Structure formats: structure tokens, C-alpha cells
């Protein structure tokens, strides 16, 4: 069974796929043009006024018609086009935990993050086995400061070869753990 369609709905139907991308003003112009063509009249301004006045009369006596107009009005609400920035997930930050397990806790120690890292403190907290990894988190300038702390206790000693992260860590580990003695 097919549903009968009024010719004007086929010709004037404002919700066709082709109209989907038109602006509201363009849709008004297009709908008026179609009614004018259907009625074989040419003055589109007069057509627009006639449509509006008939619509008002019809709406006042026909609630179903009024609902159709309201439904179409809602459909024509401006669709916010998602911009790329709006779909982007908020930027979250996760701090990477240290891949180290403290072997003991030292309570009551003054905490100061502005001082150079003390390799003897790292040794105490993480033990000999984890000391190289703990030192590996440091930059070369930080390791250089840590190295000076070791050299204060072991004057006249220094890393072998050119100072790199690896040679600095090897030197610090050897003297802090006592392996070099």
C-alpha cells in the first residue's frame, strides 16, 4: 500500500536532502520559488506574503498544521558544526612513577628539591641493586653535581674516560656502594 502524497509536498518539501545544506534565507527563497512555480505566478514577494498570511489562518484553526510548522522549525535549528578543537579530548597529564621500590623509609628528613640529588641518600633508600637505575633518572648536569658529593668523600678520584651518563653512574655506584674500595 502506498501513501498518497500531495503534489506540493513533492515539489515544495523543504526537508529534502538537497536542501539540507542551505541557509535559512536560501530555504525561504527556494520554498517561495516552488510555490510560485506551482501556482504559475511570478511575484515572489507577494507569494511570500500570501503564504505567511494563509499559514497564520490555517494554524489558528488546525492544531496539527501548527505542530507540523513547529516540528519543521525545530528541525531548522542551527546545527553546531563540530570543530576539530571541540572534539578533542581534554589534555590530561599522568606523572610516570619511578620504576623503583624503596628498601627502607627514612622519616623526619628535611625535604628539599632544590638541592642536588645525594647519591648516598639514593643508596640508602633503594639499595645497591637499584642505585644505577635511580641515577639513570638524572640528567648529566645533575649527575655531575652528585659526582661532586662523592668526590668530596673520595678526594683525588674521578670517572674513567670522558664524562658521560654511563661513566658518571659507574663511578658513583662504585664509590657509594664501596665496590671501588
Amino acid at each position, binding site marked *: 500500500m502506498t501513501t498518497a502524497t500531495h503534489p506540493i509536498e513533492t515539489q515544495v518539501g523543504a526537508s529534502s536532502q538537497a536542501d539540507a545544506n542551505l541557509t535559512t534565507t536560501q530555504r525561504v527563497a527556494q520554498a517561495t520559488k516552488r510555490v510560485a512555480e506551482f501556482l504559475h505566478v511570478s511575484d515572489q514577494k507577494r507569494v511570500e506574503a500570501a503564504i505567511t498570511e494563509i499559514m497564520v489562518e490555517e494554524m489558528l484553526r488546525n492544531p496539527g498544521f501548527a505542530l507540523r510548522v513547529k516540528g519543521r522549525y525545530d528541525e531548522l535549528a542551527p546545527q553546531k558544526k563540530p570543530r576539530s578543537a*571541540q572534539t*578533542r*579530548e*581534554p*589534555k*590530561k*597529564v*599522568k*606523572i*610516570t*612513577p*619511578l620504576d*623503583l621500590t*624503596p628498601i627502607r*623509609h*627514612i*622519616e*623526619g*628528613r*628535611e*625535604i*628539599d*628539591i*632544590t638541592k642536588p*640529588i645525594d647519591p648516598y*641518600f*639514593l643508596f*640508602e*633508600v633503594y639499595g645497591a641493586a637499584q642505585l644505577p637505575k*635511580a641515577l639513570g*633518572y*638524572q*640528567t648529566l648536569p*645533575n649527575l655531575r653535581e652528585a659526582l661532586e658529593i662523592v668526590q668530596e668523600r673520595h678526594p683525588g678520584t674521578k670517572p674513567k674516560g670522558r664524562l658521560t651518563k654511563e661513566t658518571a653512574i659507574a663511578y658513583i655506584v662504585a664509590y657509594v656502594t664501596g665496590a671501588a674500595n
Partner: protein
Amino acid sequence: MAIAIETALQKRFEDIFKAPKLEDILALEPPEFERFVGYVFTCAGYTVELVSSERFPDGPGVDLDLYTSESAKRPIARIEARRYKPDRKLRFSDVARFLGVLQLAGGIPGYLVTTSDFADPATIAAEMETAHGKARLVNGKDLMRYITYIGGSRAPDASGLKRTPVPVSPDWLLSGSHSLQNMERSNAYVLTVANNKGGVAKTTTALNLGLALAERGKRVLLVDMDGQASLTASLPLPEVGTMPSRTAPPPERKHFITEYFAGQVSDLGPLVQLTRFSNLWVLPANGDMHRMDTGGGARPEAEAAFVRAIHSPSLMVPSIAATTQALNTAPVSFDWIILDTSPAQTFFTRLALGASDGVLMPINVEAFVALGLSHAFDTIRTMQALSGGAKVIGYTITRWKSTAYTRGVIKNLQFQLDAEGVPLLVTAIPYDSKIDEALSTTMAGGLRGLFGFNRSAAAASYRDLLDEMLKKVGHA
């Protein structure tokens, strides 16, 4: 009359106070241990006399007499100190002998203090009707708690010795009526947001964790423990019967938590008030708290009372309270109580920490961040000793901005907090201008909190932080 202790020994005792360990106490010789116990009670505000060699020279009897002041004529308690290894428990006969000595020495009550523990029959002996109130048993665990509590509750006196301002007996720790493990309590999880550094987003964190819980349908009470009252200001009273207005000033609050501290009310319940957000209530603060603050000294009676007040089963959702009364049904408590603290180590910060099940520390990575952080841990340990609570859930980085400096020092901070045994919560709260925008909106009476900003990185992060925290505390 006061106990005289050589400088070197006093330094050793102070080292024990700094980080109390049983092994360090066991390393003391028995006469040194007697003096150490005397030193602990001296720091606890008593005048202590060493009497073992003069008045009780023949073996176990009484080592120390306690007086409330230098001018007091009669001791208020006598102490026998036994430095035993943990496996050597004190027996019935030890307690019976001590009770006998107390009786012979004038019937003054006493403390039998040991580094080990008491066998069950010994405990029974101390609880017998004739001994009731006369002999209190302090085992190694309680001694450590007492040292920790006293150590974190004292200030230098005129002689330079650090003491509590008034005598603090170990009875507060022994009674257990305010112990979170033993007391009758509501189902609420009590979280304290604390750090003695200002500007680390304590209030923002307390507020947004509260809002995040509330949007998940949890009933949340936010407690403002800071005289600055920023949390209170961010949660104005709702205007009944009208839409929130940004132009009209919000209605003024008339009741504050200060009424509880002033003793005008004995329960916190009547002071709980509505906010404009669903599932979110507030116990508001005002500037009077600054004037009521007594600082970081010990006030165990008030501290224990606050522990009981916050956990009281009668502290319930106000609107439901009236309904349950009318319908005679079971009261509905809060699911979460979140306490926001001030930057200083005030009396109110002590209260908040003592009453908390867990502590969350927001930390802002900047040069001054760590200054005094160790004092915050001292206060946490002190209040842990009082109530057995204040478990540090962890620290979270707030107002995070990735710069060469912050990336450089963050590992150093992690090392130092690893050493303290404080876990990292990996979710950081990034710097986000929406936080201030949301706060100014809610302060003016608007309803658009941080979670009203869909694209806010801080909002998304606070939700993640809540998830991470919930996993750690195991409380839904």
C-alpha cells in the same frame, strides 16, 4: 626535683623523638631507658623525679615519680620502666608486684611501661577491681605512639626544652574511645586534604573531589577547617524559590563550625548546611577560626572529641534527618566527608588529620614546595598516633605546567617522597584557567562548577584522580 640528663644522652633521646624506632630504644641500657621514659614524661609536660636509686633501690619497684608542676607536693603517678625485648612479655606476677609497690607507696596510681608487651593474665591483673585505675599498662606499641604524639605536640619552653604546654597523660592513647578501629562510627570515609604549603590547590582539590563524588550520586559533606573560609565562599547558600542570580548577593550563612569549637553545640549535625549542588553539603567556616586557633600544641581531649564528632553516626544528611525522624527509619549518613585544611599547622589542621581515615596531599612543583613538607609529615604521624587514622593515600601534583624546571625536579621530589613512604597518585591536575573561572562562577552563586566545562583538562583530571583514589582507599 626535675630529672637531670647529660647533654649527650639528651641528644640521643631527641634523635629517638625525631624518628621513633623500637630498635633505638632497645639499644639503651636499662638505667638509660629509665631516664628516657622520664624524659618522655618531662616532654609531656610533667615534672619528673628519678626515685629508683634512692627510694626504691632493691630491684623492681618504682623508677619515676610524676608531678603536675615543680611546686606540686604529692606525685600524681608513679612509673616503673622495663626495657625488655619483644619476646619477653610481662607476666601476672610483674603486674601484681607493681600493684603491691603502689599500695605500699601510698596508693598513688602508676604506669607500668615496657618496650615489649603484657601477657593476657597480666592485663587481667591490671583490670581487677582492686587495681582499677591504679595501674595502667603501657606496652611497646603504646609507648611508641605516646612518643610520636608528644614529639609532634611540643614547643620550646623558657629553658629551651621542647615540652607540651600542659601535662598530657598517656591515658588518652590507652582509652581507645577515639580510636578509628574501635569506635562506633558512621559509614562515611573521612578524607583530609592537607599540605602546610599555601597555594597548592587544597581547597580546589577538596571542592572538586566533592563535586566529582556528588555527580556520581554520593552524599558528600565538605568541612571547611580553614579560617580563610575559601571553601565556604565557593559554596554559597541556595536561594530558596528563585533561580540563582549572579547579580544579587547570595544569602548570608548564619551558622559556622566555630560554634562547635566554642562549645555552643556538642554535635556537628546542626551546623551542616545546604549548597546549590545536589548531594553536596557544607560545614562552613569563618574568620573567627583564626582567633580560636591554639596552634600545634597537644589538646588531646578536644582532638579526641572531634574524632568522635566527625565519625558520629548522628552526623547525617540534614534533609534526610528530618524525614527519618518523622518516619522512624534508619538514619542515612554521608558517604564521604572531606575536610579542607589551612596552610599553617594549626590546631584545626591537627583535628582534621586526627579525624581522617585518609590524607591526600596536593603538591605544586615549585622551588618552595618542599620547604616544611617534612613538618607536615610530622603532624600526620602525630595525629596517626592519636586516632590510628590519617593514612596517607598519596600525593598528587597540582597546577602542573610542563617546563624544563618542573620536569627536572619532579623526579627529585619523587625520590624524596619515596623515602618518606608517601605514594604518588599518577594523575596530575594540569594548570587550567577554567578552575578560576568555575570558582568565580560558583562563588557568585552560579551552578557551573568545573565539571560544567566539558573541555576542561582539570575537570577531566579530577575525575581521573577520584578514580585512582577510590582504587587506593577501597571505599565506594
